[in-house]
């Protein structure tokens, strides 16, 4: 039985620290999520456990973390559903060569550089129970991810969502996320299948059958929800509950098939109808509790697993610096080069690269999976968390530097007025607690 007093106390402390840190970061022009991610690290062994080990041991005893983790995972399951919901593959088609090339290069450049870096890091930060292929592929997918909710938040704050920069960035980030999750799915299947009795072809076959059922069966069922929404201007509580049931059912299926809960939730969101008002309506129903209550628990849980104290000595910090450098050169540099080659002015291209380099919560979700399946070690996990924080933190000031207001106004004036390509998503409500 959980110690309810301890659990409620933990939640209260986490919410308070996350809100305070989020507000402080907002004052410095950062998205709230950066502050919340930072708050999570503050609550862990890197800070609280270091300066007040007694208080840390009282607040977060190891035996109590299972309940906190369970709650945070439910939050991430719903969050991944909302992320999938926000993705609209048709957006990519609208932006032609620029989006196709930018999105693909923004995956391959950091991915290949991460694989090269793995040649150096694998003998130093891994062990012989992890295959090099799993290690390198994981590093690649972790470095090529883009947090499009944070990206969308930054675009909204700067009034760029309807600009060419904004629409190409959103479309490219969507492709990045889908691709990143497909690669991660492959790694998880590979890793888990090796240690279970089920042959890998059965796992993959099961996933393919599941995907076909989702796309050709469940998708039509969901289409009925959109029809009902259009007819009545909303969805009944029963229909919303049924939607949640489908999300958890889908998550359970992928977990049972040997993948991970989050893939099912993401897929359910991805196959939902994409009519803008309907998407916004569903987001409005689910995001408040998810973003204000459950995601901070995830940040805290991730922070509790992050131990910057493991980065002892100059050598470990050098590895960490290399990771940040490679992640930034690959993502920012690759995206900038690709968009510049497709005709984007150099400053705008650099702005796009900066946006694509934003990793945010999506990175933490992927890293948590990597640590769970032990493809990455605790020290490497901590380095990657630092990389996620740094690359997310640098986005706003770098964007302001590459694309000053004056240039953006000129660019915006050229852009035809149109509907935003994405709903406000996990973004606009709650004071902008973008994840």
């Amino acid at each position, binding site marked *: 039985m959980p110690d309810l007093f301890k659990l409620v106390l933990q939640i209260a402390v986490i919410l308070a620290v996350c809100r305070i840190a989020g507000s402080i970061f907002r004052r410095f022009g950062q998205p709230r999520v950066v502050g919340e991610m930072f708050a999570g690290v503050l609550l862990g062994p890197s800070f609280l456990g270091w300066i007040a080990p007694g208080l840390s041991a009282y607040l977060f005893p190891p035996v109590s973390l299972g309940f906190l983790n369970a709650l945070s995972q439910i939050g991430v399951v719903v969050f991944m559903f909302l992320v999938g919901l926000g993705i609209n593959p048709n957006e990519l088609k609208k932006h032609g060569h620029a989006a196709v090339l930018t999105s693909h*290069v923004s995956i391959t450049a950091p991915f290949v550089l991460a694989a090269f870096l793995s040649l150096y890091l694998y003998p130093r930060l891994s062990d012989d129970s992890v295959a090099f292929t799993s290690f390198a592929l994981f590093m690649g997918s972790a470095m090529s991810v883009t947090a499009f909710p944070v990206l969308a938040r930054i675009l909204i704050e700067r009034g760029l969502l309807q600009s060419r920069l904004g629409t190409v960035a959103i479309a490219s980030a969507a492709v990045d996320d889908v691709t990143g999750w497909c690669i991660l799915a492959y790694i998880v299947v590979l890793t888990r299948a090796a240690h279970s009795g089920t042959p890998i072809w059965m796992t993959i076959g099961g996933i393919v059958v599941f995907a076909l059922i989702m796309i050709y069966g469940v998708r039509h069922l969901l289409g009925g929800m959109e029809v009902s929404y259009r007819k009545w201007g909303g969805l009944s509580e029963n229909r919303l509950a049924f939607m949640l049931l489908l999300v958890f059912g889908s998550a359970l299926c992928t977990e049972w098939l040997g993948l991970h809960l989050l893939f099912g939730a993401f897929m359910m969101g991805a196959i939902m109808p994409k009519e803008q008002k309907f998407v916004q309506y569903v987001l409005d129903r689910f995001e408040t509790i998810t973003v204000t209550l459950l995601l901070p628990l995830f940040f805290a849980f991730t922070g509790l697993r992050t131990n910057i104290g493991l980065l002892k000595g100059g050598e470990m910090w050098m590895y960490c610096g290399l990771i940040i450098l490679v992640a930034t050169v690959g993502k920012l540099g690759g995206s900038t080069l690709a968009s510049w080659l497709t005709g984007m002015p150099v400053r705008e291209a650099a702005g796009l690269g900066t946006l694509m380099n934003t990793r945010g919560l999506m990175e933490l979700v992927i890293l948590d999976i990597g640590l769970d399946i032990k493809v990455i070690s605790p020290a490497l996990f901590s380095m990657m968390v630092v990389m996620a924080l740094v690359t997310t933190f640098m986005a706003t000031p770098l964007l302001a530097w590459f694309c000053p207001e004056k240039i953006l106004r000129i660019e915006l004036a050229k852009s035809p007025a149109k509907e935003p390509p994405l709903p406000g998503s996990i973004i606009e409500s709650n004071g902008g607690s973008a994840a």
Partner: protein
Amino acid sequence: MSRANTNFILAYVFLVALPVVGLIGVLKSGRKLTAPISVDGLWQLQADPVRLAALPCGKTLAQNPNTALVISQSGKNFTVSLSNDPKSTSSGVLEGNTLKALLVPSVAWSAGCGDSRELSLVATVDPKADPRSLAGLLSVNHCPACASVEFHAVRQTPQLKKGSH
């Protein structure tokens, strides 16, 4: 084919297709790399309880026959703690197949350790044993009169989720 399309195809080949080929090469060459031996997990300690009890700092270990070493590994570095005393966490280093660590006693089991004493652990991993096993010595630093105690440990938790070859 328009000039724009040609440029796009060329850019795609150089920036996407070629790097993917490079990736395949990296993955192939990386298979030859060797990483440090895996010691991550829970290791059930087996040692003579009488000799352990006689060892300063060893009383708590002797009183708990189910004591295990909890090792969390990051490459050649690792942290180690006792399963019945998570506060005793210390760091260690792996040199080839040999583990070296100093266990700093926490309040819970420091009785008998003295002020500046630490439990030193030096052990060799048998990589061929399944499950992996450790054999080594536990001794007390700054205590020339204290005899070392031999111990044996077997990795308990199967690495079910670990990345595979």
